[in-house]
Each structure stands twice: as structure tokens, then as C-alpha cells.
């Protein structure tokens, strides 16, 4: 029953994303454009670009992930489907997880996939690209999960979008530090095992705690 509710909701959200492709493409091109603007802004010295590239890509991914977040629950809230979700026998946390997974698949996974290409564009070595790709793969789901708490808390609040970013971005700092830090570490020839372990730890914590927090916030928002 719970598993059925999870898969049904995931399928529904993926189908909706397919029908509203503009939302997904906006996030994707925002990410690509922000990263491409840096060489124009800081100048074309390849040493400088090479050293800042992982950080630039990480920050751009972080900002791009904020773009679609306020829509995570807002449309369900507006048309009444959120009410129905709250009344299903399945635990609300599981349904939140389904929505977050759908959001990650359509909004964040394309960023992770194009990131290596942008890395090569900024002339970073394949070894660093590989580590950066792994850290993005481990880190972006955590961003989505943290974002879900913020999206639930700001639901129905006027001007919720900017407020959401103010709430969530500080929470993302540890993920950013260890995500971007791993790439710098490998560039300096250090071991990145610790960074990857910490990112995995963050992901597991968020996976367990964020749905519970978001579910509680949603119940309050609909009261």
C-alpha cells in the first residue's frame, strides 16, 4: 500500500514534469549560463579558472537547485492534491520522499550530467572532473531534501521564494564545503575519502530526517 502510493506519486510527478518541460529547462540553462559567465567575468587565465572551476560549478548547482524548489509543494497546495496526500493511509514522509526523488530526477540529475562537460570547458583535469561528478551525485540529493523542508515551511507564505533561499542556503553550507573541497583536495593530490564519506553521511541523515521534518511542516501549513 505504502509502496504503491510512493510509485504512483513518483510516476505522476514525472509525467507532470514532462508536460511542463519549460520549468525543467529553465533550471538547466540557468546552471549552464551561470557557469559560462565566469570566464567572461574573471578573465580567461586558465590557471585561475582551473582553480575556481569546481567551486563555481558547485555554487551554480546550489543556486540552480533553489529555482524550482518553491514549486515542489505549491501547485499541489493550490489545487487540493496536497490535502488528499495528507489523508492517505501511507505515511506522509514517504510521499514527501517520492516528490523529492521526482524533483531530483528532473531538476538536479540533468545538472549533474552536464557538469563534467562544463568542467572540461573550464579546463580542469579528468581526474578532478571525476571527483567533482561523484560529489555532485552525492551532494545534490541532500540539497533537494533540505530544500523540501524549506519548501514545506514557506508554503502559502507571500514572497515565499526568496525566503526559501534564505532559509535553505545556509543549511547547504556543509555540503558545499565538502563537495567543492573534494575537488580542490584531489587537485592538490590529497586523499578525498573523508570528503566522500562525509557527503554520504549528510545524504543518509537528510534521507532519514528531512521527510519527517517536511511532513510535519506540511501538516502545519494546511492546518
Amino acid at each position, binding site marked *: 500500500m505504502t509502496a504503491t502510493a510512493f510509485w504512483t506519486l513518483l510516476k505522476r510527478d514525472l*509525467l507532470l514534469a514532462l508536460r511542463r518541460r519549460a520549468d525543467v529547462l529553465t533550471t538547466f540553462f540557468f546552471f549552464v549560463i551561470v557557469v559560462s559567465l565566469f570566464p567572461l567575468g574573471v578573465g580567461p587565465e586558465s590557471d585561475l579558472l582551473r582553480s575556481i572551476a569546481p567551486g563555481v560549478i558547485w555554487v551554480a548547482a546550489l543556486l540552480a537547485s533553489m529555482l524550482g524548489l518553491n514549486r515542489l509543494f505549491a501547485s499541489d497546495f493550490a*489545487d*487540493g492534491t496536497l490535502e488528499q496526500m495528507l*489523508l492517505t493511509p501511507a505515511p506522509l514522509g514517504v510521499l514527501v520522499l517520492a516528490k523529492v526523488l521526482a524533483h531530483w530526477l528532473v531538476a538536479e540529475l540533468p545538472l549533474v550530467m552536464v557538469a563534467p562537460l562544463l568542467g572540461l570547458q573550464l579546463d580542469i583535469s579528468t581526474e578532478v572532473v571525476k571527483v567533482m561528478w561523484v560529489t555532485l551525485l552525492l551532494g545534490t540529493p541532500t540539497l533537494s531534501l533540505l530544500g523540501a523542508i524549506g519548501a514545506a515551511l514557506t508554503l502559502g507564505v507571500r514572497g515565499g521564494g526568496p525566503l526559501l533561499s534564505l532559509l535553505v542556503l545556509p543549511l547547504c553550507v556543509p555540503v558545499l564545503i565538502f563537495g567543492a573541497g573534494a575537488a580542490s583536495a584531489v587537485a592538490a593530490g590529497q586523499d578525498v575519502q573523508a570528503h566522500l564519506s562525509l557527503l554520504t553521511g549528510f545524504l543518509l541523515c537528510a534521507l532519514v530526517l528531512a521527510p519527517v521534518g517536511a511532513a510535519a511542516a506540511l501538516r502545519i501549513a494546511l492546518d
Partner: protein
Amino acid sequence: MLEVEGLACIRGERLLFRDLSFRVDRGQVAWITGPNGSGKTSLLRLLCGLSQPEAGAIRWQGQDTRAEREYFARDLLYLGHLNALKDDLTPEENLSLDPLGSVSRDAAVEMLSGRGLKRTVGLMSRVLSQGQKRRVALARLAFAQMRPLWILDEPFAALDAVAVDDLAATVAGHARGGGVVLLTSHQDVAIGDVPVKRVSLTAVSPIR
């Protein structure tokens, strides 16, 4: 089946009602009445568990609904003011991708065709009229026969005469089958031959 005892509700800063007690038994339809703003929708949301009462208890088959949320949710079907339809999905997708309970797509199409909504199949829900959307939302009732408690907020709004009669018959049929229906409506609709219990919120409102 459903017992309400000493219920009080505050929305914003205002007390809507207090000391509201009633019970609805198997096979009964309860019609919540009261003027606009008397708290009909708030009462229904309290009963479903979407919001929390200031005081009082709600029991379903003798169990507190908040303590036994999951158990209660299996028995409940709620249709609010909002139709809970996705604009970018077709009616049959809306019904078959409802996380509440999965129905196959073919069953949904068949159901819609049987209710005079055949022309809406394959169209995006956003292009449907208010009445058609309401009827698609109400089509969920056909898949909810096994849920004994129906809570319907203004189910007759925006419906044409034929659809109103259909819905009244569905509600009466559910009550005859041993279900419990709570509804609000400003229209006076005859609900077949089942006992209709009127619950007035005017009597328990602090302002008379």
C-alpha cells in the same frame, strides 16, 4: 460510527463554534447546515484530521481519530472545495495516478464514460469546465465504495440537474450499503429514502 463530543473551533482569532456534539450512525447521511462563515468547512476539515480542534474529541468506531490516524485514513474519503485535479493531466490520468488508491487507467476511462464524461477523456483537465471538473472529482466516489466514511464539502456546487440527481443517488446508495456520509450544501437536494440528520452550526455559534 462517528461521534463528536464537545468540539470547539477557532479560526484566526475568532471562535466559530463550541460544545458541538453529535453522532452519525451507519446508514445515515448528516447534513451540516449554517450560513456562510459559520464553520461548515472548518468542521469537515477537523473531522478529517486536516486541522486540530481547540477542544473536544472525534471518535470513529469508538477510536480517537487522531490517535488512530492510519486506521481512520483507510476508512475515509474526503472531497473538499478544491477538486484535487492536476491541470496538466487528463481526467483518466488524474484518477489512475491518485496516490489515495490506484485504479487502472482502463477502469478510469470506463468509469468516466459511464458517467457522461466520455468527451473529456484525453483532454487536459485545464480545458474542462468547472462542472466537468467537479464531476471528474466526484467520480472518485465510485472507487470508494469500500471506504465507509464519506466527507463531502459542497458536493453539489457547479453541477447540472442530472449530475445533482446522480450524486444524490450515489450518496443514498452508499448510506443504504452501511456507509456514513457527511456533507454540506446550500442547495436543498432530496437524498432518496435514507435518514438525513441535520446538524446545525447556528445553535452552537457564539454569535446568534
